[in-house]
């Protein structure tokens, strides 16, 4: 009969205390597994978000964390905007030219150009020099503005002073380093969720997840378009969480509220054309509207007048065919730009280049997220692990108490075994094994409970975080060698859960030690027959 069986029989003999102590150990281990898994999920989802598909944020000068919270997570207090023409510096010359086509200046320039061309055709000569072109341009700009009945007296003033609101021909300075460029216009809310004015590229071009390999999928509908026959500029796409919470369907109309969750509700309504499938990214919590529509909402046009002259409200222009015109770029601003640099190594260079200038700041979101993670999640992880470890230690102590309490009534049993020829070591060892069986048996149950819990909660976790958790998913791995020595040269990765095994054995040995010594020291002659 092995010592294991003898230990097991002794546990069986005291069923209730044994079950209770093993159960408390099971609970402790279950909590550890749950905490490790939850922290793993949190870290995974952070990692998911680190693979945002972009590696740089451009925003107004200020805190880089604030910029990250706003433009990555759609959280925190809104931040300042950056000029639209600054944003244009990140676009290609072709894109920029196309954007300039939609500027007051552009309209004026076109008109001037046409007039001059007509004049030239009439006179049959040249344009009459650069001065004539410039004067004509200013004149025509004024004319154009008057024709459109814009109240831009200050703009005229500026024109007369030859201070142009946008620098014609300004270089697309940063374009050489950019791959994907996605502008964000923040400031509006839909319920508790942020409304994000952006371009369709947000879902067409952006990829997320590991190696930026995942596409955004729509559980219903499609991506919004810059302009559609049915809804004009007013199309919206909502994240999975938003759709669930507000019970939104494709085809429904939503009206963002201005400035805050309880701000004035805009008159303009956007039609939901798509609902994003849950991706575990912050996009789940966003309402994405077409930037063109965003600009056309009241209070969203940047007043280019200053002083007493009030900005135009409800700016909306239609062209000759009655089609709504987009807001001229002079009246636009963006809150942030999500950038994917052309090459990864461009990031640091571009970051310095941007931060040296005084127009905007560049932030590396992954670094910011890491900082955030270290700031918030890391202490929580340490605290949670500490607490759950304490629970296990307390369970260990309850094992100690249970075995120790039984020692007085077992003294005779131990003496009988000794009289039968069992050595001191053997009886001590049996008590240690008992502690080991209780701790590891309870631990195994706890591990199973924990993983069953994960398995049961898996669908919900996946729905809310986009991270899938199954029965056989283990807590994140760590380099075990790093625990032993300071600077490991080799890698031996093992899930943190496996550390539970040596930890439990150690705990069992520690709590079993004292009663084992008691057993070891039992005075056989005195204890026999008692």
């Amino acid at each position: 009969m092995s010592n294991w069986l003898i230990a097991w029989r002794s546990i069986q003999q005291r069923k209730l205390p044994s079950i209770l102590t093993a159960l408390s150990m099971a609970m402790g281990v279950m909590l550890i597994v749950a905490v490790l898994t939850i922290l793993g999920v949190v870290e995974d989802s952070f990692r998911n978000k680190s693979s945002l598909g972009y590696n740089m944020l451009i925003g107004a000068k200020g805190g880089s964390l604030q910029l990250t919270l706003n433009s990555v997570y759609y959280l925190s207090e809104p931040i300042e905007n950056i000029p639209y023409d600054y944003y244009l510096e990140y676009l290609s010359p072709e894109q920029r030219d196309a954007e300039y086509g939609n500027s007051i200046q552009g309209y004026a320039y076109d008109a001037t150009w046409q007039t001059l061309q007509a004049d030239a055709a009439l006179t049959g000569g040249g344009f009459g020099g650069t001065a004539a072109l410039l004067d004509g341009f200013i004149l025509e700009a004024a004319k154009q503005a008057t024709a459109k009945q814009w109240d831009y007296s200050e703009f005229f003033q500026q024109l007369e002073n030859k201070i142009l609101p946008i620098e014609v021909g300004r270089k697309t300075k940063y374009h050489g380093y950019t791959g994907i460029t996605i502008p964000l216009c923040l400031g509006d809310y839909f319920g508790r969720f942020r409304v994000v004015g952006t371009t369709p590229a947000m879902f067409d071009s952006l990829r997320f997840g590991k190696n930026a390999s995942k596409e955004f999928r729509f559980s219903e509908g499609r991506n919004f378009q810059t302009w559609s026959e049915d809804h004009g500029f007013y199309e919206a796409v909502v994240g999975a969480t938003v759709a669930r919470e507000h019970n939104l369907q494709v085809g429904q109309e939503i009206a963002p509220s201005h400035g805050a969750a309880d701000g004035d509700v805009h008159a303009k309504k956007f039609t939901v054309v798509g609902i994003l499938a849950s991706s575990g990214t912050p996009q789940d919590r966003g309402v994405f509207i077409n930037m063109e529509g965003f600009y056309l909402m009241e209070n969203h046009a940047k007043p280019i007048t200053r002083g007493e002259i009030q900005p135009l409200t409800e700016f909306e222009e239609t062209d000759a065919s009655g089609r709504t015109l987009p807001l001229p770029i002079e009246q636009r601003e963006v809150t942030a730009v999500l950038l994917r640099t052309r090459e990864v190594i461009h990031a640091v260079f571009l970051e310095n280049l941007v931060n040296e200038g005084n127009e905007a700041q560049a932030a590396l979101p992954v670094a910011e997220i890491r900082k955030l993670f270290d700031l918030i999640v890391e202490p929580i992880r340490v605290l949670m692990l500490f607490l759950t470890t304490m629970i296990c230690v307390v369970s260990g102590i309850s094992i100690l108490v249970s075995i120790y309490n039984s020692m007085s009534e077992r003294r005779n049993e131990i003496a009988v075994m000794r009289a039968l020829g069992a050595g001191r070591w053997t009886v001590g060892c049996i008590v240690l094994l008992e502690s080991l069986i209780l701790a590891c048996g309870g631990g195994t149950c706890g591990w199973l409970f924990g993983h069953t819990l994960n398995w049961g909660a898996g669908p919900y976790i996946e729905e809310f975080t986009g991270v899938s958790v199954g029965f056989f998913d283990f807590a994140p791995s760590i380099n075990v060698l790093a625990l032993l020595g300071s600077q490991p040269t080799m890698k031996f990765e093992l899930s943190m859960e496996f550390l539970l095994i040596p930890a439990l054995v150690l705990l069992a040995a520690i709590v079993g030690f004292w009663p084992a010594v008691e057993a070891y020291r039992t005075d056989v002659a005195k204890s026999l027959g008692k």
Partner: protein
Amino acid sequence: MLELTNVEKSYLEPDGSRLAILDIPSFQLAAGEQTAMIGRSGCGKTTLLHVIAGISHADAGDIVLDKVQVRRLSEEARDRFRAHCIGYVFQTFNLLPGFSALENVILGMSFARGKRDVTRARELLNRVGLSHRATHKPVALSVGEQQRVAVARALANRPSLLLADEPTANIDPTNQQNVIDLIRNTCREENISLLIVTHAMEVADQFERIDRLEDINRVTQSKHGENTENTLAQPEVY
């Protein structure tokens, strides 16, 4: 076979003085011989058995069993020697409550490493007439049955000496005779020496050899009166 020479045992009193219990100039038991040891309560019978079994360490003298100097063995070796060569039956609480009758018998074997024989355990239970109760836990057995299991267990390792410390003190007379017969017959069959302590004269009278501990123990010979006081003053052990 079993030979005690000048064996002394004393206990340390709380006041620091030594309380002598045993001083036995000579005691012998031949192989297969059976003897009943009688003596007043508290005169040191249990202590003597403990000393022979190596459960207690004698202060002086030689204890030789099967040519082995028990007193010279290390504790570990004594434990192993006990497992192999000595069977022990106590007055009460012989069995481990967590184990079935059969397991209790096997337990007797498992401490003597290498000797584990379930067939013999069943055979022994059969011999003590308890084969039908092999899977019962001690609580489900009567005291008489428990003692019979204890006898089976004591014999499990084919010891050369069986020590029985008032094995029938708590049993009714009919069962008492059964247990005594069982012990005597098996010891005879397996050529095991038997040293049985009893204070029941009807038990002792059945033996050809009877030893009075007071007669072979110098302590009780000389300090008779003092020791009586001691016995009265202290709670009895067995």
